[in-house]
């Protein structure tokens, strides 16, 4: 294995993102067209320039063909990727291998999910065992973590809920500055704590919403990126890592850490040559499907010491004006979570921040150079994380 083989070989020359939210008036096709044409325009390319595509979606489409159907692409290879919440970033990872090895020069990566046409607010249920694990919910699974994380770190659950609330407040604030976000309202800790419980200790504002959305990226060989634009973004690393998925049952899994995410981060840092993420990274987009996820991810990604992430939350380290802003666009909390699109929405935000082109100037960071994304699929004990690192040339 040569982890550095991918570093800097692939450039992102165009990004696009549809409005996220309850897009009653838009079909999956409409959202794909919005995101793809924004990315093509950003890259200065046309559809006919695209040599291959990777389509990420969990339940909206099967096969890669719908993308050709929507965009009227003729006779090019398209692969459909599914890896739970890491779907979009894993599509980008696979696409980048296709470019890095020299098979393709210009590739389109698309992530999409249309969840709101189903008539209920949960995620669709896939095949499940007749009794084992059936009926478990995503917040319930993360709540098992929250309860034990608090216990193992001597945090009273009520204090713990306040710490989590601060993450929700931060992400809602950032989302209020993101025009494409689903929720753009600002909230305070009191409102978070008074909201209905979803899966104690998690309440309504500790959970992200389901949403519709699509996002896209156009990538090419790094050595030809300059022919499209000067401020392209280099993909420095992309690591998808899985464990045996037996944490819920494994006595050694203490429900207070994300070992798969820590392993993905280690692999990505090695690929990108990053020694100290907390100081080297300019920003991060992490998987705040639940506030407890974001809190524990600070530790898994090496931003905070184990058990001490709450101190950094209290210090405001990850706020927009902190030393390492996290989820500058409001993350999943603000954008909702159209599963197969989320990773490329993170990529969109990171690239636009690095290029100094955040869609509202109030949100623009000063001179960022390196960004990290984490999409964390599955649930604690059964995680599918992807950690990717982006940098200016």
């Amino acid at each position, binding site marked *: 294995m040569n982890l550095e083989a991918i570093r800097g070989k692939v450039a992102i020359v165009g990004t696009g993102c549809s409005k996220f939210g309850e897009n009653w008036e838009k079909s999956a096709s409409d959202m794909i067209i919005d995101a793809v044409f924004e990315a093509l325009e950003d890259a200065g390319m046309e559809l006919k320039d695209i040599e291959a595509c990777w389509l990420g979606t969990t339940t909206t489409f099967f096969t890669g063909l719908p993308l050709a159907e929507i965009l009227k692409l003729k006779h090019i290879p398209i692969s459909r990727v599914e890896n739970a919440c890491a779907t979009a970033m894993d599509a980008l990872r696979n696409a980048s291998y296709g470019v890095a090895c020299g098979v393709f020069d210009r590739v389109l990566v698309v992530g999409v999910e249309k969840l709101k046409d189903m008539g209920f607010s949960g995620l669709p249920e896939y095949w499940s065992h*007749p*009794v084992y694990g059936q*009926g478990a919910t995503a917040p*319930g699974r993360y709540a098992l973590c929250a309860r034990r994380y608090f216990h193992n770190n001597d945090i009273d659950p009520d204090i713990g809920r306040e710490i989590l609330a601060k993450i929700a407040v931060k992400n809602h604030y950032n989302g209020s500055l993101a025009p494409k976000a689903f929720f753009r309202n600002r909230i305070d800790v009191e409102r978070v704590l008074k909201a209905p419980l979803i*899966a104690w200790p998690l309440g309504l504002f500790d959970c992200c919403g389901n949403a519709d959305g699509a996002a896209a990226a156009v990538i090419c060989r790094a050595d030809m990126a300059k022919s499209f634009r000067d401020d392209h973004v280099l993909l420095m690393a992309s690591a998808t890592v899985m464990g*045996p998925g037996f944490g819920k*049952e494994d006595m050694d899994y203490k429900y207070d850490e994300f070992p798969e995410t820590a392993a993905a981060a280690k692999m990505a840092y090695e690929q990108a040559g990053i020694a100290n993420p907390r100081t080297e990274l300019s920003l991060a987009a992490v998987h705040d499907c639940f506030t407890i996820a974001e809190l524990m991810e600070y530790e898994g990604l090496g931003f905070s010491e184990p058990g001490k992430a709450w101190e950094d939350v209290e210090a405001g380290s990850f706020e927009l004006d902190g030393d390492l802003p996290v989820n500058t666009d409001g993350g999943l909390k603000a954008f909702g979570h159209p599963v197969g699109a989320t990773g490329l929405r993170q990529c969109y935000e990171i690239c636009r921040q690095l290029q100094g082109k955040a869609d509202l100037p109030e949100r623009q960071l000063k001179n960022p150079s390196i960004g990290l994304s984490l999409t964390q699929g599955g649930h604690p004990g059964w995680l599918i994380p992807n950690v990717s690192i982006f940098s200016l040339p």
Partner: protein
Amino acid sequence: MVGIRSCGAYIPFFRLKREDIAKALGGVPGRGEKAVANFDEDSISMAVAATLDCLQGIDPSSVDVLYFASTTMPYREKQCAAIVANVLGLRRDVLTTDFSSSLRVGTIALRTAFDAVKAGSAKNALVVVSDCRLGGMGSPFEQAFGDGAAAFLVSDSDLIATLGSEYSHTNEFTDIWRTQNDDVVRSWEDRFIYEKGYQKNVIEAVRNFAKAQDLSLKDVNKVVLSAPDARRIQGAIKALKLDIKSQVQNPLFDQVGNTGAAFAPMLLSAALEEGKKGDRILVVNYGDGCDVLLFNVNKSMGTIDGRRGIKGYLASKAYLPNYEKYLRFRNLMNLEVERTRPPLSSFAPVLWRDQKWVLGFHASKCKECGRTFFPPQRICLYCQSKDNFEYVRLIGRKGTLFTFTLDFLARSDDPPEVFTRVHLDDVGIYCRMTDRIPEQIEIDMPVEMTFRKFHEGAGYPNYFWKCIPTREVAT
């Protein structure tokens, strides 16, 4: 000589105060409380609990026969005893059958078991009686009925009580019934059915029995007397001239209620728990006729580690907050909680392949590194050795709660649904918790496992294991 080698019982955790029925529906409040099966319990799950109580310290593979008696079999076609046998881990060549339809099935099954042991076709015959009957909303039956189960191991040696003599007669009579289409118990006018049915048959049977055996009722220490309710038992006691204080086994109408076919068997279990060597226990059971059985207590049961019996289960309880909760448990409310969610599914081939752990609750223990996993794994999580494991039966293991959540989003008939990871010695189990009071759940609390109905996806009951906070054992 044949008799009872061991017995066990089960009473659900939840009780409904009869005054709460009157609070909801009006009318005169009944006295006391009744035992109510949780939403995830039925006659099969309660039968499993009672047989496990009965088999404490006894090797399940020594059981030759299993008779399951109930008037509330979850299946009309398909044998329920086969499910219980599989959960208990009985031998493949065990003879199983269901006894149904009559409130007398418990004692009929017992008599049949005695016959099997007498005839030598079985050495150990397990009999379990379990019932969960529904009285129509607002009816006296709803007030009277309770849920529960009792189990007996019939054998020819090591007996706690020997069978003295038996008597039965059959009587065709339309007093109470359920046809194929009835969910609730129907009946004819009560003065007629109790005078010409219950009272007449009980007196006839006891007199015939006493005469044939040359027995004076004065020489009987305890009478287990089946009866529809607290009022009707008084009439029978009076007619039989029994001393209500010393001679009649407490019918538990105010604590448990009339548990149908399980009623007399549960009282017999209680009588055996309290019995002393030399006591004579007379069991009188009514339903489409009458059975009378006389037992001689051989030895005190004493305390068997982990065995709860009637006494233990009576002491461990919690009250339903109101009548509406009872309606929800019995699925008597037409709730619209799952507007457009797809129905829960099930797959018979999967359940068949996974019987060893879904029903039998076996884990796999790696022979290489000694780690144990549930559900069983072909490849060891730690040393990755392949197909190098032995099955370990987890039934009966106790443990502690590692983490939990109160999930208000998950489908539940008693929200919030509680999801947990528990540790049973060296095995981690990811499961739901039932029979719990949400405010009292805390990390490290002692837990045990219980066999429950999960849902009826694909049109049949799907069973599996859940954890419960350990029910205290009365000492």
